[in-house]
């Protein structure tokens, strides 16, 4: 594989995945440029989560190419290697380590040597503590830093998971339904948070909440039956007849 084949940070070309005959992804092609924030919308079963699974190595595509940073073939790597390349993922259902404190959740996510030997020899360091405090300030969880994550509210867990993404310091953040189950105020704050993050990172957000997507104010891709139905600004996409028909409803 020669150096770079594309300028895109994330490049999916003609990716297909099927489960027992059901085509979850059908010739999906998508590119995300470095520094971009992209919102992905689409009805249930459109393939949004499967797309995330393919990018993070959880699911192998039947065919098609997936390249990260132009040079890394993601279809040949596993979850750990992909995470090491700098792709972080927030799951649809908030998954934090419930038995650990908020602080320790972030500590585990912090960019550091991930070998067993290094974690055994680990000692608390001021720099690490400072970075954790910094992230806690961004995700507004400073007051609950010592609490176990399992005792947090749903919205707080979502933020903690976004904080863990930040701690990993990835190049690309995949954020699956960050505002599901949040109040309007929390949704608004989350949009603010993501916009802040997107100033430095490339972000792909999957979301159902159209008000939230509108608030993000970024390029939108609508998926349907495993491929791209429409792409453009939120206004363009939401006026597209097919999108209205299959997703938004009349």
């Amino acid at each position: 594989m020669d150096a770079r084949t594309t300028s895109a940070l994330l490049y999916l070309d003609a990716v297909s995945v099927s489960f027992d005959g059901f085509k979850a992804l059908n010739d999906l092609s998508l590119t995300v440029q470095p520094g971009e924030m992209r919102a992905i919308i689409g009805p249930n079963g459109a393939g949004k989560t499967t797309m995330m699974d393919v990018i993070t190595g959880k699911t192998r595509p039947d065919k098609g190419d997936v390249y990260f940073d132009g040079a890394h073939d993601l279809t040949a790597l596993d979850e750990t290697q992909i995470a090491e390349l700098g792709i972080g993922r927030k799951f649809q259902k908030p998954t934090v380590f419930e038995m650990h404190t908020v602080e320790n959740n972030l500590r585990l996510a912090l960019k550091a040597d991930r070998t067993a030997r290094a974690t055994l020899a680990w000692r608390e360091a001021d720099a690490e503590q400072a970075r954790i405090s910094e992230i806690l300030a961004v995700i507004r969880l400073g007051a609950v830093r010592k609490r176990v994550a399992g005792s947090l509210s749903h919205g707080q867990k979502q933020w903690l998971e976004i904080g863990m993404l930040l701690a990993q310091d990835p190049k690309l953040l995949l954020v699956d339904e960050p505002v599901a189950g949040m109040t309007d105020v929390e949704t608004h704050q989350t949009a603010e948070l993501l916009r802040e993050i997107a100033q430095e990172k490339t972000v792909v957000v999957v979301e159902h909440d159209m008000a939230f997507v509108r608030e993000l104010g970024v390029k939108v891709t609508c998926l349907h039956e495993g491929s791209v139905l429409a792409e453009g600004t939120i206004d363009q996409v939401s006026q597209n007849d097919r999108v209205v028909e299959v997703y938004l409803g009349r």
Partner: protein
Amino acid sequence: MTSSPLIRALDRSAVTFILVLVAIGVLVPLLNLLLPSSSFWHVPTYLVALWGKYVCYAILALSIDLIWGYCGILSLGHGAFFALGGYAMGMYLMRQIGTRGVYADPIRPDFMVFLNWPELPVYWYGFQHFAYAALMVLLVPGVLAFVFGWFAFRSRVTGVYLSIITQALTYALMLGFFRNNFGFGGNNGLTDFKDILGFNVQAQPTRAALFAISVAVLILGFLICRTIVSSKLGMVLVSIRDAESRTRFLGYRVENYKLFVFTLSACMAGVAGALYVPQVGIINPSEFAPGNSIEAVIWVAVGGRGTLIGAVLGAAVVNYGKTTFTSGVLAPYWLFVLGSLFVLVTLLLPRGIVGTVRHYWAVWHERRDAANARAAEAAPKPAE
């Protein structure tokens, strides 16, 4: 904030626990050796041997708690590693018998002479040296666990499937060791030991020393486990237990972590078995029986998994119950008791003894702090 891993490992309950163990390890042998048997405080030798057995079980329980309580690996075949360590020690003890055996062969143990084996099999070489046998006590269970874990964890075999395979592993070994031509004494196993490092294994001082050594090893094992679980590695283990794929997506090589603790745990179990054999005087294939491994898991569940102290306590309590029960008229019902104990603990006391105590202790502290805070708020109101 910076603290060395060992200091971090020694919180208040750990220190207290170690002090209690030290007291037991020192007092029991002294009360056995120094006091006349007429004294009220005298500990009879049979009790020293019995308690020594419990201590070995406690080390096994500790090794299970490390992988099950902290990393979620439920091994139902840990007795295999215990028995392998025991056999390695048994082989050393057999080679020490020499010409004092029934057939008085200087090299071959009795069962080989009986089976008309012309010479010692190659894998029995070297076991006349204690150092070599001690190395094998660690190496044989360790290598087996490493190879087993390498395949199992890389193929992402988890949960109940892994438990079943570990059962099959110990069962297969049991069938193998039962065979005479396997070369480990078959059915009868290895027994009739005479000396360990030149001391008579039956002698009272040797038994007292073996007890003290077992307690020392238990303390060492506890320290190793505490150091691991209180480090960042311990945090990763708990993360793997609670959300394995999340841990993977964070970039941790889950299989390497599992392999590390699994292998370490198998070595610990092996040492426990090696200390067990000279104290009970026999090792035979029934030690590989799947039931033994399951029983060891029950000790941990009863004591409280993920607490380490609970594992030790559970092993002691359940085995004390077993001894009491099986020596009376109720002996035939012991398995029913054990089974119902497991069911009851799972239903009513899912945290185990130590886990439950710690839980209510924390709840009580929280309430008290909350009450104090309220009182502090109410107090400073000035009088009119």
